[in-house]
C-alpha cells in the first residue's frame, strides 16, 4: 500500500467529519473520493495533504507515518479547486516555483519545466499569464505545477469544478490518460458520480464521515455494499412493495431500490420478448417525459410506480397505454447491507432486448 489511512477520526467541535476512516491504495492507483457535500471527502484529502490534522489514527505514505510532517515535506502535489495559479507569474514561472523554492539549479529547473510543458502540451505558452489561458489550459498548468517537484502522491480537489460542461468531458479523459502515463498515485475529490466512474480506477464512497465502500467503478455500480451506495449511484429510486412485482418474494429487508435500466417495458406484439412474455405483468403508462436522447416512461405496475427509459428508435407509446413489464433485478437492503435480488422467473431465460 502506498497510502494508508488507519482508524482516522476527526471532529470540528461537535461535528464528526471523519469516523473510523480506513483505506489503502496501491502505488499508481487513480482513486476518486466520491460523496455528497458534507460527507467528509474533502476533509480526508486535506488531512492527507497536511492542511488538517486527524484527532486520532495514522496517515501512512510509503510506509512512513506522516501525521506530524508539515504539508511541504510530505512529497505531495496538490491541484486546488480553482487551480490557485499565481496570477502575476507566467506559465513558466508558475511551474518553476516549487523547484525554485527548493533551491534547485537553474538549468535543471529549466529542463524539468520544459519536460512538463511538452508532457502537458503547453509548449509555446510558457510566457503567457494565467488570465490569457482557457480553462482547460489552466488545469494543465495546475497539473504541471503540482507535478514539477516530482511528488509521490497527487491530490486534486474537485479538479473539474471550474470548467464548463463541454470542455469537462475532454479534460476527464486527458487527466486520466496523463496520470496513468506519469504513473503517479493520485486521489481526486468529486461529488459527480459520472466523473468518478469515468476517471477513477478505484472509487471511495464517503457518507457522513464514514467510508461506505471502496471498489472499482464496475463493482460499485453492480454490487453496492450498503444502502447508501445503492441509492447514491446511478439514477436510483426508493420503492415500496417490491414483493408485489412478479418474480420477487418478500424477504427480511427494510426497503428496496430500483434503477430505470432494471425495468423493461414492451408492447404485447413485440416478437423479441415472446419467450419471456409469461414472466411479464401489465403496467399502465402514467407519464412520459422527453429527455433528449430517450424518453423517461413512468408506469403503474400492480400499484407500484416504476420508471424506465425508452429509446426514441422504438415504437411510440402514449399515456394510458397498457404495456408488458419485466423487472430484471432490484437492490434490497437491511440496516447495514445492500443485496442484489434477481428476478426468479428469469433464471436461465435468455433475454435479447431490441
Amino acid at each position: 500500500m502506498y497510502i494508508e489511512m488507519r482508524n482516522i477520526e476527526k471532529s470540528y467541535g461537535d461535528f464528526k467529519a471523519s469516523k473510523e476512516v480506513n483505506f489503502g491504495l496501491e502505488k499508481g492507483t487513480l482513486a476518486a473520493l466520491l460523496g455528497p457535500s458534507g460527507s467528509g471527502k474533502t476533509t480526508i484529502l486535506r488531512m492527507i495533504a497536511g492542511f488538517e490534522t486527524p484527532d486520532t489514527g495514522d496517515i501512512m505514505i510509503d510506509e512512513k507515518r506522516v501525521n506530524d510532517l508539515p504539508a511541504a515535506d510530505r512529497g505531495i502535489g496538490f491541484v486546488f479547486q480553482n487551480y490557485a495559479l499565481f496570477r502575476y507569474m507566467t506559465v513558466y514561472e508558475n511551474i518553476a516555483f516549487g523547484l525554485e523554492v527548493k533551491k534547485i539549479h537553474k538549468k535543471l529547473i529549466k529542463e524539468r519545466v520544459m519536460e512538463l510543458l511538452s508532457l502537458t502540451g503547453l509548449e509555446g505558452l510558457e510566457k503567457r499569464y494565467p488570465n490569457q489561458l482557457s480553462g482547460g489550459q489552466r488545469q494543465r498548468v495546475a497539473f504541471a505545477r503540482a507535478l514539477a517537484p516530482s511528488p509521490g502522491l497527487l491530490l486534486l480537489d474537485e479538479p473539474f469544478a471550474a470548467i464548463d460542461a463541454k470542455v469537462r468531458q475532454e479534460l476527464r479523459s486527458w487527466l486520466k490518460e496523463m496520470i496513468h502515463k506519469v504513473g503517479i498515485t493520485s486521489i481526486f475529490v468529486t461529488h459527480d458520480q459520472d466523473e468518478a466512474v469515468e476517471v477513477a480506477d478505484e472509487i471511495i464512497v464517503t457518507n457522513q464521515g464514514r467510508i461506505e465502500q471502496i471498489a472499482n467503478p464496475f463493482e460499485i455500480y453492480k454490487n453496492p455494499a450498503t444502502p447508501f451506495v445503492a441509492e447514491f449511484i446511478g439514477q436510483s429510486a426508493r420503492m415500496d412493495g417490491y414483493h408485489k412485482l412478479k418474480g420477487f418474494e418478500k424477504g427480511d429487508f427494510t426497503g428496496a431500490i430500483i434503477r430505470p435500466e432494471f425495468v423493461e417495458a414492451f408492447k404485447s406484439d413485440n416478437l423479441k420478448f415472446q419467450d419471456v412474455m409469461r414472466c411479464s405483468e401489465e403496467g399502465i403508462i402514467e407519464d412520459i417525459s422527453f429527455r433528449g436522447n430517450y424518453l423517461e416512461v413512468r408506469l403503474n405496475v400492480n400499484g407500484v410506480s416504476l420508471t424506465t427509459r425508452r429509446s426514441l428508435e422504438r415504437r411510440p407509446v402514449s399515456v394510458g397505454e397498457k404495456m408488458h413489464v419485466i423487472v430484471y433485478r432490484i437492490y434490497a437492503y437491511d440496516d447495514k447491507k445492500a443485496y442484489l435480488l434477481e428476478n426468479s422467473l428469469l433464471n436461465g431465460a435468455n433475454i435479447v432486448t431490441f
Partner: protein
Amino acid sequence: MKIKSKWILIGISGVFLFFMLVLPLISVIINSLKEGIGFYFQSLASPTVKSAFGVTVLAAVIAVVVNTIFGIAAAWLITRFTFKGKHILSAVIDIPFSISPVIAGLAFLMTFGRMGWAGALIARLNEALGTNIQIVFAVPGVVLATVFVTFPFVSREIIPVLLSVGKEEEEAAALMGADGFTIFRKITFPHIRWALLYGVILCTARALGEFGAVHALSKTRGETFTLPLEIDALYLSNSSESITSAFAVSSILVLMAVAVLIIRNVAEHQAKKNEENH
C-alpha cells in the same frame, strides 16, 4: 432627453467646481504673486517657513513609513486570520476617519502632557536617563498627531484587494515549501502594490495638509510649526505683506496637492489596468 440632461449636469458640475474649487485656488496663486516674484521667493526663504517645511516633510515621511508597515500588517491580519474581536479591531482602525482631528490632538495633549499618565512616565524617564525628551509642544507630538490622522489610509486601501484575491495562491505556495517572506514578496505583494501606492499617496496628502490635530500639539513658530500652521500664523499677523507671504506658502501646498493628484490618477489608472490583466 437623455443627451440634454447629460449636458445640463455637465454644466452644473462645471460651474460649481469652477467657482468652489478652481477659482479659489487660482486666487491663492494670484495673491501670492501680488508683491512680485522677488517677494514670493523671499517669503518662502524666511527661517520660519523653512523650518515649517522641514517639520511638515519629516512628519509626512514618518507617518507614511509607520502607517505603511502598520497598514500592511493590519490588513494581512484582518484578511488572513480569524480571531475573536476581529470586527472590533477593524472598527478601531477607522477611528481617525470619524473623529475630529482636534480631538485627536487634545487626546495626545492629555496623554503626554504634564497631567497625563504618559507625560509623568516620560518625565521620570528623562530624569533617570538625563535626557530631555519632549512630546507635547515639540516635534515628536506633531509627528504623533500626523501618524494618528493618517492611520487608516494604507490598510483601508489594501484590505479589499486582499479579500478579493483570496488566499489560495498563498496556500499553494506554502504547500510547495515557500516561507512567509517569499510568499509575501512573490505572491501577495504583486497583487497589492498599486493599492499600496494609492494608500501611500492619500496618506501623504493628508499628512501634508493636517491642521487640527497638529495645532493642538504645536505652539512654537519656527520650531514645531508645520506649513498649514505657518500659513495660519502669517495670515493672522494682519500686515498686508505677511498675508501675501501666507498665500505664497499656500501656493507650495497647492502645487504639492496638484502633484499628488496627478500621481494618484496614474496609480489609480495603473491599478485598474493591472486588475484587468490579472
